């Protein structure tokens, strides 16, 4: 029953993701670099989901994909926030050094600390905490001053909310993910259903954000 629910939620998330990608590809103008990065992230997301699903259906271990996905997710979303938080001088100044340093940590974790056939809970938790920090910094930066309100900023706010809600809520799931394998706790299925649900919410918020940008452009033609 839980498996069925998880499948439905996962398939729905993939459907929403595909729709977002199509919308991005056919409608967002070439000039919008920020949304190109978002598109790259969404494509990465989709490819990972599809390949992981393929492996899972063939009862093959798909966890190495999570290690790769974590690294690229971190780089792409960090780049996204570098552009969004353009007024934060620390992020602008130390961005590439920070990316390099964390990437080295993530890769080192996969090579030396945690097997690629298990969950990369260390790296995943670190990346999630960093992404949560970006989202909080965005909220802090703009909660005390009025942001220029247009469809682009509304979209960025939605994407930020999506990142914050998903990564905060799923933090504990990934933090304890390896314990499921070690202790063979059956209840972990419930948590993966929760993760699938949170992922669906994440994808829906991203889709709404893209919709706002795309249809603003349509109105202005």
């Amino acid at each position, binding site marked *: 029953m839980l498996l069925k629910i998880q499948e439905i939620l996962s398939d729905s998330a993939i459907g929403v993701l595909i729709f977002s990608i199509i919308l991005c590809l056919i409608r967002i103008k070439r000039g919008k670099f920020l949304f190109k990065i978002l598109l790259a992230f969404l494509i990465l997301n989709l490819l990972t989901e599809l390949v992981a699903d393929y492996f899972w259906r063939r009862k093959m271990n798909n966890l190495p994909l999570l290690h790769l996905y974590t690294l690229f997710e971190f780089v792409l979303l960090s780049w996204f926030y570098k552009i969004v938080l353009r007024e934060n001088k620390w992020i602008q100044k130390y961005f590439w050094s920070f990316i390099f340093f964390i990437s080295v940590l993530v890769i080192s974790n996969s090579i030396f600390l945690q097997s690629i056939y298990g969950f990369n809970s260390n790296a995943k938790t670190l990346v999630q905490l960093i992404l949560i920090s970006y989202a909080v910094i965005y909220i802090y930066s703009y909660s005390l001053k009025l942001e220029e309100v247009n469809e682009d900023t509304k979209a960025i706010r939605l994407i930020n909310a999506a990142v914050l809600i998903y990564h905060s*809520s799923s933090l*504990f799931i990934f933090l304890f993910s390896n*314990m499921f394998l070690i202790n063979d706790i059956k209840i972990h299925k419930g948590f993966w259903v929760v993760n699938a649900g949170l992922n669906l919410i994440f994808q829906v918020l991203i889709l709404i954000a893209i919709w706002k940008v795309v249809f603003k452009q349509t109105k202005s033609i």
Partner: protein
Amino acid sequence: MEGGFQTDEVYLIMAMGILTMLALSLALVLFFYKSQRRLLQEKMIAQQSELQYQEKLLYNNILTQEKERKRIAKDLHDDIGSKLNVIFLNMHRIERAAKESPPILDMVSDINQVINITIDTTRRISHDLLPPTLDNFGLIEAVKELCETYQKSDSVNVLLEVKQNDGRLVDKTTELNLFRIIQELISNSIKHGEAEQISIDLWLGSENLKLEYRDNGKGFDLAKLDDKKGLGTQNMESRVKMMGGKMNIQSSMGEGILVRVSAEV
């Protein structure tokens, strides 16, 4: 069980962790949206106050302008006008005294001509600044008089039609504002529109008023109006706002102009 954690403990920690983080993140997102909305509301209130202040400033300017016009018109009529009349009368005395001296008579005649022109000019300026007809007899009579003045000049044909007249408007300021609007429109039609035919329709009800102004001038591109709005047009808009009314302008190149003004009294 290996790992030291019991099933229930892990379940509890994870569930609490998920719920706490979900609640915190939702609270943060809501806080952000609320603070942006609050800041936006504050900005709108500030902008509204600024706009009201600017409007008030503009209205005060207009009222001051009218007060000054009234004062100047009065001074022209009472002071300068009356003194010119005194000069004119004294010139008549000189004329009578210098009957036998043609050169002096000629000079007196020339001076009388200039004095007459000056008296007429002074009267006209005083009248243009604030027509006494408006104050004494009301808007319709003042507009009729205005139209007749332009008719006499032969350069333009101005037709006034009073479609509804329920009596004098109670508010003299509204009468004055509407009069000034009509003055400005006629002036623009002649100066810029090169119109030969102007028609003015007036509805003066007990609860509302309406003006419909048309000319057959060369018209203008409405899209460029906002960029090139002159002081006269801005003045008209301010006066319409002062009356609490609305103004609608329709025009296109070669098609003249149609202006509708409406307000409640």
